[in-house]
């Protein structure tokens, strides 16, 4: 009971602290962008810990955060190997391949209205292929190792990037286009000097959504066949063994890696699209 009350108290305190920080005069500092979510996260963890103890939750259900941290400390080498297998080999490779393909197809299709209006619906059809359907097929085609995971990721990230590149390249004002026309600018100058720069805010939208998709894709595909290493392998195996602390340790790694990946893309976006109203 004590713990439950403590949980609620921490909840309230964390919220108040954030309320204060976010509205304080420091709220525009860079550090606040990290501190506030961190406090939020820390609060969640503490409340979680208190509630698990207080409500006596069975650890095969929900482990305590402290157990998870402990597990992470013990299993570092294994977690690292899983990370390399799944994120570096599977997700990143697939992200790059899928991104390049989407980009190439978008730019190609964009040359003609005809191709674009054909590629987009077919692309959206592809995006709707559920991962639990394509993962077994790709494992069959490309084997159990990371290649099949990269293929799944490539397919998953393809559409969001494609749509955004296409939409972005159309997001120019008529005056901006007319200006290019008065220069008698051909396809390439218009592409390089107007359409691509103007498309950047959209492209980064797609790239950001794709970061989270790529992690999910690589991890989930391992459920359908893998070597005996990898985050998805570990999650499903540990889940079957009811080693929930290990499952959560991997989830934490996935969350950290995913957030970092997203953050890096966001940083690049800030640098590239500094001129867009949403960045100013």
């Amino acid at each position, binding site marked *: 009971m004590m713990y439950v009350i403590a949980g609620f108290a921490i909840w309230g305190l964390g919220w108040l602290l954030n309320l204060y920080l976010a509205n304080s005069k420091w709220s525009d500092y860079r550090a606040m962008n990290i501190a506030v979510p961190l406090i939020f996260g820390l609060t969640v963890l503490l409340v979680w810990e208190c509630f698990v103890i207080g409500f006596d939750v069975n650890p095969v259900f929900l482990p305590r955060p402290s157990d998870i941290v402990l597990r992470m400390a013990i299993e570092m080498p294994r977690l690292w190997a899983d990370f390399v297998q799944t994120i570096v080999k599977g997700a990143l490779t697939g992200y790059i391949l899928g991104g390049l393909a989407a980009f190439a197809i978008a730019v190609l299709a964009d040359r003609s209205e005809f191709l674009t209006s054909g590629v987009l619906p077919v692309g959206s059809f592809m995006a709707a292929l559920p991962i639990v359907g394509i993962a077994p097929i790709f494992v069959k085609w490309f084997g159990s190792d990371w290649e099949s995971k990269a293929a799944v990721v490539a397919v998953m990230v393809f559409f969001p990037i494609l749509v955004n590149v296409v939409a972005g390249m159309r997001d120019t004002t008529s005056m*901006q286009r*007319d200006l290019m026309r*008065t*220069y008698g600018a051909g396809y390439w100058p218009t592409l390089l000097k107007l359409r691509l720069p103007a498309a*950047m805010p959209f492209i980064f939208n797609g790239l950001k959504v794709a970061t989270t998709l790529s992690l999910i894709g690589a991890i989930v595909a391992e459920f359908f066949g893998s070597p005996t290493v990898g985050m998805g392998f570990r999650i499903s195996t540990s889940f079957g063994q009811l080693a929930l602390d290990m499952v959560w340790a991997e989830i934490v790694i996935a969350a950290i890696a995913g957030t970092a990946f997203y953050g890096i893309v966001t940083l690049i976006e800030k640098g590239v*699209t500094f001129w867009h109203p949403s960045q100013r």
Partner: protein
Amino acid sequence: MTQEPTIDAKGLHLTFETNDGPVHALQDVNLEINKGDFVSFIGPSGCGKTTFLRCIAGLETPTSGHISVNGLTPDEARRVRAYGYVFQAAGLYPWRTIGGNIRLPLEIMGFSKFEMSQRVERVLELVDLTGFDKKFPWQLSGGMQQRASIARALAFDADILLMDEPFGALDEIVRDHLNEQLLQLWARTEKTIGFVTHSIPEAVYLSTKIVVMSPRPGRITDVIDSSLPKERPLDIRDSPEFISIAQRVRDGLRAGHAHV
């Protein structure tokens, strides 16, 4: 070739379809502009000045009628980069600095690095924006943006300059200064210039030909060939000739308004 007009519009019509009915932006417009002419377009707002300029530049396709530029279609002329165009709004690319915006046409037309920086510097000076080349458009005032867009159009030497109210957002002093500069440029280079303005003195001061337009439907109501000499000091504006031309323009304008 010298006989043939640089720009020749015959029986031009242009109708926009809108949600509540067609808008006749241009109706039976006929106009000849010769090489080296400085033509001003003046008329109430909505009379089709912008639309006509866009037709010349091949940015808008007339519903019917015929238009030729240097004996080519406007589209072809556009492709051989016959025009410099200044839009009614500045329309700078937000991801480029002022310098970068001016460099844009130069890059496209393949000028050398050195040539580019020289030209950028020269036109920035011309429009009084020296030192602003590293700023981004949103960091400039409205008038400064407009001047940057004029600089952009001047940076490459197109034979035909089309300017849609380029000096609208500028004060009298700068405006006088730029008017003089423009006249000098025109005299020196023999460019053909199409120029939209709302200022009667400006139109009279600059032009060899003044086209008065009237709205609903947009059409030309008067074409005045200026009898002013090519050499025009600012104080020519007090000459009786100047005042009489201005009066004719004003009457034409008033007639257009009465029609409303």
